[in-house]
């Protein structure tokens, strides 16, 4: 199995995040940047599949030069190599053009399975997997909490509000995963050392045959007009339970007309 895992670098969701005042893009300078958490689960799943069925795992990232930290971190978990799409013209890309660039890079990688997170913790748009499947004409198995591989047949349990759906497709396919699918491994010391020597193929837009006018601010299909910080919530009343905390709670709910 030839597996490509999509890995996005995002600002740490545990810290304050913001958009830049000048161009409304994510302020990556202010934030500490990490691998999108959901993508670690995709890496783990890819490694488990190749460990059981053979094959190779490639990491694919589109992001600024600084995303190379996250690529090394991803490689330290075990993938063999990486492709890093980096080009200044990509700044400001919307999801539609991001999918165009990633689809172009996938074109040369011959993947049986394209694994990715269900959503990123910054954009959270949850659209990339189906956009890629649509562009590439391959199956999309999305929202997986379980994946089984049987020859060229993939079967997932797709998490839904009501329960789950069992969905199946043949390779090649895009599979997106939730964080319930597995427990990602920690990189070993050996893994960290090995990652330093693993090949990272850097690709520009020109290498991929994508015109700069189709991506970034120039090619964006939507635009951010403005943004503002929501005023932080302020703390209200706080009472200490002295044997009547439950009653007091209900009194409050009653004044707010919830009971």
């Amino acid at each position, binding site marked *: 199995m030839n597996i490509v895992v999509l890995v996005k670098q995002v600002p740490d969701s545990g810290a304050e995040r913001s958009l830049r005042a000048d161009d409304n893009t994510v302020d990556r300078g202010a934030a500490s940047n990490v691998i999108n958490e959901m993508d670690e689960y995709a890496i783990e799943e890819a490694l488990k599949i190749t460990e059981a069925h053979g094959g190779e795992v490639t990491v694919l990232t589109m992001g600024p030069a600084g995303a190379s930290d996250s690529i090394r971190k991803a490689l330290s978990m075990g993938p063999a190599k990486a492709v890093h799409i980096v080009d200044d013209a990509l700044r400001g890309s919307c999801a539609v053009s991001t999918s165009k660039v990633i689809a172009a890079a996938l074109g040369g990688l011959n993947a049986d399975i394209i694994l990715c997170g269900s959503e990123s913790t910054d954009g959270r748009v949850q659209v990339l*997997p189906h956009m890629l499947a649509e562009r590439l004409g391959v199956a999309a198995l999305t929202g997986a909490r379980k994946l089984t591989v049987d020859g060229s047949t993939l079967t997932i349990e797709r998490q839904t509000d009501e329960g789950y759906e069992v969905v199946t497709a043949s390779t090649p396919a895009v599979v997106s995963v939730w964080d319930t699918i597995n427990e990602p491994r920690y990189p070993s010391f050996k893994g960290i050392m090995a990652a330093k020597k693993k090949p990272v193929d850097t690709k520009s837009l020109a290498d991929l045959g994508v015109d700069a006018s189709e991506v970034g601010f120039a090619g964006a299909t939507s635009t951010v007009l403005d943004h503002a910080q929501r005023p932080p919530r302020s703390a209200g*009343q706080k009472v200490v339970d002295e044997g009547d905390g439950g009653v007091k709670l209900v009194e409050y709910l009653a004044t707010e007309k919830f009971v």
Partner: protein
Amino acid sequence: MAEVLVVVEAAASGVKKVTLELLTLAREIGTPAAVVLGGPGAAEALTARLAEYGAEKIYAAESEEIDGYLVAPKATVVAELVKRVSPAAVLLASTQEGKEIAARLAIKLDNGVLTDAVGLDADGTATQVAFAGATIVKSKVTRGLPIVALRPNSLTPVPAPASPSVESLTVTATESDKLAKVVERVAEQKGARPELSEASVVVSGGRGVASADNFKLVEELADLLGGAVGASRAAVDSGFYPHQFQVGQTGKTVSPQLYIALGISGAIQHRAGMQTSKTIVAVNKDTEAPIFELADYGVVGDLNKVVPQAADEIRKRR
């Protein structure tokens, strides 16, 4: 006025509330037209409700293929319809499936798409929330028509009775629409409780609830308030409650009238899923717990004492 296509979401209980919100919003922009995508007979059960909330037209795309394959056939139907009727906008629910249909639609039409909107003006300017609700963004689709996915609980649905005509659409799924086959749909019990992302009251439990068994306290309070049950990630990871009920950064985003957090510390990733709730109430034994920084009302105490007492008090007041 041009039509505004509203992609309908339904559950076993009927039309989802978010669809009624979309119909309410659509009236501000043009003539609401509901698009039902389902198996044979799907539209009939939904027609009365869609009419009550102002659908002037109902497009019914009903076929085994729509139910039998994941998402893709639905996007094909909507794309064909867009090309035919040139609507003013396409509105969808910002749910997993709504966003996935929007995603494919955007590629098919080479069009922009906005997700997680909480509002949309008649001129196409959307309001989105980003970064755990901390940032409010005004944005606009600049290529094609507005394809906008609206977060559940963004507005109050208002009835506006209409008498829609129903037009059935022929579904012609392409080969590439039929690559992901749905073999089985399995319902996991959540009782008669409302859907988490749509509920107007959510009662959530965290690690402080201490066991799966003890989540009955959370469920009891939720049921007394007619609410849904949620859980923090720590509670889910500890096996106290199933993952589909997780609230937060990597779970559901909820925006109810009332959110009650029981034994939840209020980590930033949990807040990500609930801090746009109208009223927040917390019970936590640690007076320093960060959840109190955003709670409108907080009780510092042991949830094992406070919650049963509150439940009794609600029963008494009936």
